[in-house]
């Protein structure tokens, strides 16, 4: 395999960063009093992105020997990687400034927030297109992968932010129905999109079918079912869905706190596992 866990981490962190920024912007608008959660999202965004970029650079061996070469990354606008660099060049400073403003307790101007939201979407989508344009791997080369990555990015960013909201400011967090609802809905959409993608890839080519098989029944099956489907999709859906659709009242017990923490962590683990599996399980089209 060309890429490994390091790139999977990068794809995950970039996506979760974008998701966290969007979550913070959303919370700022809908729940101006939920300061802790908003600040959490604002801080997670640049930190995750920075760690991700570091990993990305560490994986580029020749660049590490001669870091000035990274400047050349802007030269080929026809490459999705170069496009990603453009997006990150906008996104990273914006989310850094937003974080600094937030730390200094100055309100983030609306226009800055919007630039951040749009560039965050672009960053999340580019991580999907990066793989999506590679014809050699049917598991990547389909129109659904970027959508899946964007949804999973939103979901992971929301989970990272919620996790902190849940621990630091539980009372408020339990009242944020819109956040909770979005969370449940995102899990459901992600499951449907994942399923659709696997069906399409499976029917598209023998190599695609072999990749899908390795995920659902082959060497990656334990990670796929355990890490992605159960921990990353079903558990969070049920854990968040229960108060949102069944009891319809805020939880206060310690048990529910623990269960919620498991749910949010599950989304994060699932988000990473998704990217790891997509990177590892892709098989190239045969040329002989």
């Amino acid at each position: 395999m060309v890429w490994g866990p390091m790139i999977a981490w990068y794809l995950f962190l970039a996506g979760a960063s974008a998701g966290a920024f969007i979550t913070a912007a959303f919370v700022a608008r809908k729940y101006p009093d939920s300061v802790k959660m908003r600040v959490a999202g604002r801080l997670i965004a640049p930190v995750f992105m920075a760690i991700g970029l570091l990993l990305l650079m560490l994986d580029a061996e020749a660049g590490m020997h001669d870091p000035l070469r990274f400047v050349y990354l802007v030269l080929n606008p026809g490459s999705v990687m170069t496009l990603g660099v453009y997006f990150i060049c906008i996104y990273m400073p914006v989310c850094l400034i937003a974080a600094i403003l937030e730390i200094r307790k100055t309100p983030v101007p609306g226009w800055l927030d919007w630039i951040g939201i749009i560039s965050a979407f672009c960053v999340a989508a580019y991580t999907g297109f990066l793989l999506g344009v590679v014809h050699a791997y049917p598991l990547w080369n389909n129109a659904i992968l970027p959508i899946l990555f964007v949804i999973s990015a939103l979901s992971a960013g929301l989970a990272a932010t919620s996790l902190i909201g849940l621990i630091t400011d539980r009372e408020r967090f339990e009242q944020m129905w819109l956040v909770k609802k979005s969370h449940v809905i995102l899990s459901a959409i992600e499951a449907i999109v994942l399923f659709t993608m696997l069906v399409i890839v499976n029917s598209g080519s023998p190599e695609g079918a072999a990749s899908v098989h390795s995920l659902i029944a082959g060497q990656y099956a334990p990670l796929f079912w355990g890490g992605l489907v159960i921990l990353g999709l079903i558990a969070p859906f049920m854990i968040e869905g229960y108060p949102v659709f069944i009891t319809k009242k805020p939880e206060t017990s310690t048990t529910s706190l623990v269960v919620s923490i498991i749910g949010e962590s599950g989304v994060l683990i699932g988000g990473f596992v998704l990217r790891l599996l997509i990177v590892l399980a892709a098989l190239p089209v045969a040329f002989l």
Partner: protein
Amino acid sequence: MARYGMLIDTKKCVGCYACRIACQMINGLPSDEAFIKFYEEEQGSYPNVYAENVPVQCMHCEDAPCQTVCPTTATYTTDSGVVLVDEKKCIGCKYCMAACPYNARVQLHPSGVVEKCRFCWYEGEPGNPPACVGTCISGARIFGDLDDPESEICKEIARTNAQPLAGDLTRAKIYYVR
């Protein structure tokens, strides 16, 4: 302008790996890094089966996917159609390795640069002939200008009806007799 390409006759290839070693020598590669990879294909039907040796290296694709994705423009194509890597620009991101459908790219160590067959390009010209062609013990390889109908390679492609390895997977400039 010439448009360089190669013909490989798998019927003549005996699988001696001489081309691969010559390539490693001229490019200074260690024994575990090579620009030519060998694949064995089972051919024929019982009882007349045989193992076909298929040496595979960079096809110098006219629509090179490796070049499209290369973010630094380290990968480029010369006027004569040879796909090259500028080792001073490559950051080793491996995007080209992912994009190449022939598994033709190799990450070199310790530099981290991703390289491949370059038709022994040296000082603005390809090798005359490249090392693999010059060294082949059975004459299974021909190198030349695909745009010159009088060239040995063009005549041989026409005579043997040689085809690229994988149909229209990419517009490859290495032709195979199989």
